[in-house]
Every structure is written in C-alpha cells, then in structure tokens.
C-alpha cells in the first residue's frame, strides 16, 4: 500500500498536474454533456434506490439484497471448497505417484488456460445433465421447503435455490482450485529441500512432516497470493450469473431490465462489488498479518 517512496509526498503542483486536471475537467464535462444532451438520459437515482431496496410482494427481503447474500454465500462456500481442492491438487503435484502428479499438473494447466466462461458452460451442462441425476442430488434438493431450518436458510439460502447455489459453488471452486493449487505448488517449491530431508532423516512420519515442518513455512509464503485468489474468486463468481445462478449480477440484470434504469442499476452493482472486494481485501490483509505474526519471521 506504499506510494512510490522515493518521490516527495508534499504537494507541489507540477505542469503535469495542471494538464491532467484540465483533461479531467474536459472529460467529465464531455461525459455529462453526452449523457444529458447527447443521449438525453434522465438520471433518476431516487427511483433507482427505491426500486432496488423495495421488498418483494410479501414483504420479504428485497430482491437486490438476496442477490448480495447469494454472492456472499457463493463466495464463502466456493472459497472453502476451492481451498480444500486447491491444497490437495497443489500437494498432489509433489506426490510420489507419477500419474497423480501428471493429473494434478494437467488440471492446473488446463483450467488456467481456458476461459472461465467456456469452462462453466461445459461444466454446468455436465453437472446439471449428468452429475446431479447420477448422484441423486436432485431428489435431495426437491424436498419441501418447510424442512429447512433457520440455520440452513442462513447458510445455504432459500431451499428452492439450493441446487442453483450448488451449481454455482461447484463451478467457481473448480476454477479457483486450479489457481490456488498453483499458489500452493509455488509455496511448497520455495521450501528448501533440506527441510524435507531433515524431517525424513529424523524419522518424522510423512503427514507430520507436512503438518509441522512444511506447511507452516509454506503458509507464510502462500498467504499473500492466496488472499489475491480469494478476491478473484468473489469477482469471478459474477460469471455464474450466465448459467442463471441467482447472485448479485443476475439479480442486477433482472432489475436493470425490468425497471429500465440501466445506468443507475449497473453503476450500483459495480459499486457493491467494489465495496465487497475492497473490504474483503482489507479484512484478509488483517487476517494474514495476524496469522503470519505467529510464525517466527526468518530471513
């Protein structure tokens, strides 16, 4: 978060400042002119805000807010699943079994090299048409809504959308897992060989070697890029709106289309994502600092 350190921070206007300021003013004026007169858009923020925060027919949570909650749930469960998968795949790159190593490497390579959009289209078709029926999950999700207890609703949202949520969670966690796996792999690769060998020659069992010797050291290196991946996960979650997962982007586009307040609603959605990601990054940085403080810092 440091600004360019070697430059004086005291405000001394330069010629560049003047030029930029002029450009800024011109651009802003031009944008205002075009929107107000060019395309004659009538901004109506009051209307937009009241539409967005209006409760549904029966006085339940406003639609827009359900979208925000869904994005939060999607991101939280996605992060949990992606972390588990990512760690397993990242560690799998170091497996003694060659086939497993190649499999994990291939997973990372492929998922990181095809567009997320293409992946979710393939994967959504695969899970909705094959996986769900195969595992009998659709039966599970088609239960009567009254069965859901309060905490289940809190954790997973309304039962009618559980299947919807699961699809979204699976999609984003499969993608995010590849990136997390790469972070984990790089973190493990940075641990000197001697650490493994010392653990082995002392006869510390393999799992304990990971748990006590390798992971704590890897964690200090993994934590910063990992927080970046979590932010990316929140952002990437917006694309599952394209497979009709009812999260913020999906809800935003519904409201924008039905109200016709395109400008206001899309700017509002962007603003909400901005707030989400920014506060998440501040929060995670805090957590990261607290977590790594307990590990002794070494040169």
């Amino acid at each position: 978060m440091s600004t360019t350190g070697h430059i004086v921070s005291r405000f001394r206007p330069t010629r560049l400042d003047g030029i930029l300021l002029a450009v800024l003013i011109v651009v802003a004026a031009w944008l205002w002119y075009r929107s107000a007169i060019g395309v004659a858009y009538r901004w109506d923020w009051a209307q937009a805000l009241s539409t967005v925060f209006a409760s549904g027919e029966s006085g339940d949570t406003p639609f827009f807010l359900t979208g925000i909650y869904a994005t939060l749930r999607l991101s939280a469960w996605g992060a949990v699943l992606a972390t588990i998968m990512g760690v397993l795949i990242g560690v799998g790159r170091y497996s003694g079994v060659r086939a497993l190593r190649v499999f994990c490497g291939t997973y990372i390579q492929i998922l990181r090299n095809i567009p997320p959009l293409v992946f979710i289209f393939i994967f959504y078709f695969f899970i909705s048409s094959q996986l769900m029926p195969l595992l009998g999950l659709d039966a599970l999700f088609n239960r009567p809504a009254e069965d859901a207890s309060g905490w289940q609703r809190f954790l997973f949202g309304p039962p009618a959308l559980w299947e919807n949520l699961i699809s979204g969670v699976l999609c984003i966690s499969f993608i995010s897992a590849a990136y997390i796996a790469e972070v984990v792999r790089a973190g493990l690769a940075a641990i000197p060989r001697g650490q493994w060998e010392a653990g082995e020659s002392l006869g510390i069992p393999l799992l304990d070697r990971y748990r006590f010797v390798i992971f704590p050291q890897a964690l200090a290196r993994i934590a910063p890029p990992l927080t970046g991946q979590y932010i990316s996960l929140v952002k990437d979650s917006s694309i599952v709106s394209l497979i009709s997962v009812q999260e913020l982007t999906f809800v935003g586009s519904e409201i924008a289309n039905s109200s016709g307040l395109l400008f206001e609603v899309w700017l509002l959605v962007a603003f909400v994502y901005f707030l989400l990601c920014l506060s998440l990054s501040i929060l995670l940085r805090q957590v990261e600092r607290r977590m790594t403080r307990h590990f002794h810092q070494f040169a």
Partner: protein
Amino acid sequence: MSDETQPIIAFENVSKWFGTFQVLRDIDLRIGDGECIVICGPSGSGKSTLIRCMNRLETHDRGVVRVEGVELGPGERLPRELRGKIGMVFQSFNLFPHMTVLRNLSLAPMRNLGMDKERAEQTALAYLERVHIGEQAEKYPDQLSGGQQQRVAIARALCMKPDILLFDEPTSSLDPEMIREVLDVIYELTDDGITMVCVTHEMGFARKVSDRVIFMDHGEIVESAAPDEFFDAPREERTRAFLNQILHYEASA
C-alpha cells in the same frame, strides 16, 4: 577389526547413476558397529551420495546395501523400524526456522517415538547441555551463530538415540572461528560408541578421531586405511596428490 563382527553398514558392489552419469562405481564397504569413519575426496566425487545411500535419502541402482542387518535393494527406501535410527547432520544445518530450538529437538521424539511432551523436552534439554548450548533452548535458529546452529542440529539428531550418525561436511559452511566448537562436540561423541560416518576435509580432526579414513574419487573408493597409515604412507598416487593439494592449501592459507 571390523571384519570379524557383523558390520552395521555394508555396501556390496553398489553403483548409482544420475541419468547417464555414474556417481558411485562398484562400492564395497563394511563399517563395524561403533566405528568412526572419515570420508574425504575432491568435490563431486560422490561422498554425499554415498552417505545419503546409507539413510536412503538417495537409493542405489545396482548391488546391495545392508544397514543394521536389513537388506536394501535398488530403489528401496528405509523400512519403518529404521526411520530415525540413522541420524544425519547437514552442511547447511537444516534446522526448522519457524520453531524454537527446543521444539526442533522435541518434535521427532514426540511424533516418531510417541514420547510425551514433557519427556521429549527433558531429553532435548539434556542433549542441549551435552553440546554446551542449554541456555539457548527458547531461541529461534536464526538468532544463533552458525556454530551454535550446527550444534543444535547435532543434538537434534541425538534426541532420536540413533545407532548411526552421518555427517555431511558439518563444518564447511561455518566461519573459521566456529569450526573448532563443532568438531569438539563431535569428538566428545566418540565415547558413546555410536557409529559415525563423517564427510570432512578437516584432516587434523580425521587423524585424531577416526578409526579409518576413506578417500573417494570419481565415484570410487580409492583408498581405505587407518589414519596414521593414510596420512603418513598413502599407497595410492591419487591419494597423495589429493593430500598434497589440501596440505599445500592449508600451509599457504
């Protein structure tokens, strides 16, 4: 003398390759229980590889290795019952940087031998005393000098009560003034009757401590003799050349 009793380590016709490069050539070697061996030879001659084949950090490709009566074929790792029984001290210490000295020492006894924390720490403190560093138990490795770190590493290996202790150039990354303290600690261990194999170029140490000195070159054991004989009357031309180089270096240094 080692020929009469059952050797604790035996290499029979052992060869190893890295790709197409042969690191070990038909190694035959028998080390008796309680013996102290020093291995020397030019850099890249296969010394590290040889001793790493003893605790199976490396595996060989041809021949047979026998450790404590257990026969190990090509590619075989250390069987469970021997894990931790062959300690190793590395050139670069390899202490766990995120743990205190005490934790470095007590981890393996707790996880491998199932010792409870209290006993493991008692043992750890006892060995720290033995390497004259008892007061540093709560420090982290990077707060210690190189010589102290290496002594911690020795104590850490000892905590597993190993039958064999391997040293791979334990003083090579130390500043000159710290070499002595580490060598002294190793010397004191000879009283314990533990089998020791030490790769080192400290010739004074070799003469004083070892029962036998082995000279390696190009993956072969060129000469193996008692220290007096080895230094005063080396049989092989290559040994003489090597010793000349080292002594010449030491004289001019």
